[in-house]
């Protein structure tokens, strides 16, 4: 693919709202995860809740979109001058010529859970009148909300490929721009806490009772977080500017909820993202690193097969938790911050590295020039996506 300029970007997670909060937390090694239970969840586990969602109000004209997921989007869009940057792009390209590509796995399902709860409490057959399916539960709602919130009137696509959703938005946007369906793109991802994912991952025995410990010998599973992030992509980055340089997408074709153990197909996604860049030129890999035994082992096999044990890597889920459909954009933003700051974060909460893993997992932060960063995202359905960031040629 042709490199795409990243003209603006922002991220909001349990760590904080906006880029500066993430830089601070990465450097201070301060997690956003807490042992607090989400609402009335009975599950004892760590979660990564975003502060301020409850107090966030949607603009009056978009009140019908009100739900936890769209509030999180609203909060995230307000950070780092992102909406203003989109406004300037809209003036340049026109509202119809900026496409919107937003990843989510569960969209507004928390709203549907509340509607079913209200129905049970009222001993009613019907869902309550306040429940609006199209604007909250529907997977497309997050793309439509983002489009309307940013004053755009063209393409609006929700990409929903489980935990790779908001990595794959970079590929969809790149294709749409190259094909001429739009001149610029808003990419992003928003996923919010809900009982569906807490109880669902728990049913699969993938939720850790402790804080998540990626790559640790005693890792017990993931900690679920919520997050929102966005980036503005344009054609023709100026030489030397940090850009999106490649995206690779493959399918394991193995199992609906387990990764292919040998990582062979995930490796193909990484190789496709690199294109002609030799693997040894990559400075740092932001791992998917969910801290489930199977994910970390399969990803390690893939990374080791392509990079050997030479390229420093870590998962940042020890800070944010696994933000599911938002993980791709969160880790894209963190990858960009790593390049800007010349700072590679360690694998947070990892006490003893699993001796069965062979990739160069960072147990201490490292400073130095960071040229190219690869970010991995994998999901249910066997979907693999890797995105390469670095200076444009």
């Amino acid at each position, binding site marked *: 693919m042709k490199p795409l300029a990243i003209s603006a970007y922002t991220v909001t997670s349990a760590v904080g709202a906006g880029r500066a909060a993430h830089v601070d937390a990465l450097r201070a090694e301060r997690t956003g995860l807490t042992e607090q239970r989400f609402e009335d969840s009975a599950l004892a586990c760590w979660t990564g809740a975003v502060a301020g969602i409850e107090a966030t109000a949607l603009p009056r004209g978009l009140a019908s979109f009100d739900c936890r997921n769209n509030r999180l989007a609203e909060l995230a869009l307000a950070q780092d001058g992102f909406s203003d940057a989109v406004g300037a792009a809209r003036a340049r390209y026109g509202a119809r010529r900026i496409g919107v590509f937003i990843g989510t796995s569960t969209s507004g399902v928390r709203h549907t859970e509340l509607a*079913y709860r209200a129905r049970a409490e009222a001993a009613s057959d019907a869902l309550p009148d306040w429940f609006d399916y199209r604007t909250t539960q529907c997977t497309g709602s997050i793309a439509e909300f983002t489009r309307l919130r940013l004053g755009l009137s063209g393409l609006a696509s929700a990409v929903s490929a489980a935990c790779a959703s908001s990595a794959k938005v970079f590929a969809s946007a790149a294709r749409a721009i190259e094909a001429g369906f739009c001149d610029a793109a808003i990419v992003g991802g928003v996923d919010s806490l809900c009982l569906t994912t807490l109880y669902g991952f728990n049913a699969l025995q993938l939720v850790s009772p402790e804080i998540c410990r990626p790559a640790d010998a005693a890792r017990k599973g993931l900690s679920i977080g919520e997050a929102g992030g966005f980036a503005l992509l344009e054609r023709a980055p100026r030489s030397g500017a940090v850009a999106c340089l490649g995206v690779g997408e493959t*399918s394991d074709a193995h199992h*609906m909820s387990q990764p292919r153990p040998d990582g062979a197909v995930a490796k193909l996604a990484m190789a496709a993202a690199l294109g002609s860049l030799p693997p040894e030129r990559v400075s740092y890999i932001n791992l998917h690193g969910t801290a489930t035994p199977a994910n970390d082992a399969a990803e390690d096999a893939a990374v080791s097969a392509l990079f050997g044990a030479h390229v420093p890597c870590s998962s940042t889920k020890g800070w944010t938790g696994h933000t599911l459909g938002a993980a791709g954009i969160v880790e894209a933003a963190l990858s960009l911050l790593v390049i800007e700051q010349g700072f590679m974060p360690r694998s947070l909460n990892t006490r003893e590295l699993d001796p069965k893993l062979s990739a160069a997992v960072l147990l201490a932060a490292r400073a130095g020039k960071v040229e190219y960063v690869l970010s991995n995202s994998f999901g249910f359905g066997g979907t693999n996506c890797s995105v390469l960031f670095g200076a444009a040629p």
Partner: protein
Amino acid sequence: MIACYIRGAGIAAPGLPGFPAARDTLRGVAPYVFAAETAYAPELLPPNERRRATASVRQAFRAAEDAVKGSGRDASALASVFASSDADMAVLHRICAALAQEPRVISPTDFHNSVHNAASGYWSIAVHSMALTTTLSAYDASFAIGLIEAAALVAAHRDVLLVAYDAVAPQPLLGKRPLAMSAGVALILSADAGGAAFGRIDVSLEAAAETACAVAALEPLRVANPALRALPLFELLAGRRAGIVNLRGTGEMCAQVSFTP
């Protein structure tokens, strides 16, 4: 504008049971007769996955297998785009109902089937495809958004299977998302003109009014399911008739499709 050659077409809806059987109805020479869809067991799925496949996955497979069968293409080599407004609302219903009572117990199979990309995952397993696949949602514009993505892949020299599908919800969700029927459509698109059985489409994004069905009896179906927003295009394909149709898109835009037999 992106040129795509059509290698295969599939359809599965009440009264439109597969593209070959539906052809005369779509081109207006046979009357439309409503007939509820019979149960369908995806042919390409291994037994374990076939047992677990949900109604929406079966709907997607029904259209996709129809398109692949007619195309003579090796399905494993195709990239794929799955477009669905709502994925599986029966699974959503079971999970949300389970979470509204004590004890809260979600079935692990329901949870892995709850992802929007379940059909895409099952498809890659069924045809042993490691090629890229993506899954999109845009409410009633889902077909058009999927077609735009598929055309963009064709522009990048990929052969693509596009599948649009949605299945009717159980109550009480049906009251909030009142789809009148389950349905699916599929197309196999290529940048290469060689062996294109159905001619060519040129796809662009235009500010335009949606095109209604040419066959009046099909117009209620067009608005009955997001996948059937594609019916005006399928009428042109079935009739081998040149024409331009505008399909429901997002914002101010439609997917404009110009068909050349």
